[in-house]
């Protein structure tokens, strides 16, 4: 896998089908390749599957929540996974949650419903494109 393709691989953990499809479409148009995990456990299982440039996490997911995935990620023995950029995309936009996300090293927090164009801009900024 060359460096160019590594920088465009995004892991999206999202159980809401319509959001997952919209994010995937929009980021796909921007040249990213999006792999969708339908629950938190699937996201954890996919962390080591390939090098990701970004993880987009929903909070309210079945099996494992976004918080649990984030903890696994931040405590991961592999530095490349531990230090992955994370964008939280969630309907929960309370002050407490935003503060928690910042403490756990979340680079960006977007509240649902989101503007797909804004999401694309934020993602490009996060991966330095």
């Amino acid at each position, binding site marked *: 896998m060359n460096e160019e393709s590594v920088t465009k691989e995004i892991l999206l953990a999202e159980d809401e089908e*319509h959001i997952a499809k919209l994010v995937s*479409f929009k980021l796909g148009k921007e040249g990213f390749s999006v792999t969708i995990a339908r629950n938190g456990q699937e996201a954890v299982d996919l962390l080591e599957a390939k090098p990701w440039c970004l993880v987009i996490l929903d909070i309210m997911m079945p099996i494992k929540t976004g918080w649990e995935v984030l903890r696994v990620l931040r405590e991961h023995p592999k530095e490349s996974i531990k230090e992955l950029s994370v964008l939280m995309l969630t309907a929960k936009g309370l002050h407490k949650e935003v503060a928690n996300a910042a403490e756990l090293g979340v680079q960006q927090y977007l509240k*649902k*419903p989101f503007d797909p*164009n804004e999401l694309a801009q934020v993602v490009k900024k996060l991966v330095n494109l």
Partner: protein
Amino acid sequence: MIDWDSDPELKKLKEDYVNSLRQRREVLAGIVNQLKAESKNTPEIRESFQFVVHKIAGTAESYGFPALTELTSALDDYFDLSAVAELQHTDLVNVASMVDKALEIASNGEDPVVVLNDNLFQKISVAVERALSAPKT
């Protein structure tokens, strides 16, 4: 602002979403039937109802229905505040009818702005704003 007609795939995504709103209407109709059968407002029914409005709240605006998100977000917060437990059973049926009306409009591709003028929604909206801005004890 997304131009949903600019790409066939995007257009299909929106059509699928609108179809999903029709399915939500069917789920909501089931909740209303339960409400009528139980003749009371139970935690289980409230939970099912909140699940429906929460799902819509998190998606509608992204698909071009900001008013639908405004309506369902306020209701989602209202459920979170447990204020619904104090609602009379008939009021909850009226809330369900209001959401159904909004979904009927959205199912035809229109954002249900008109429902935001509904007196019941105005009452709920004020209650939510008051509760969220009240100092925590």
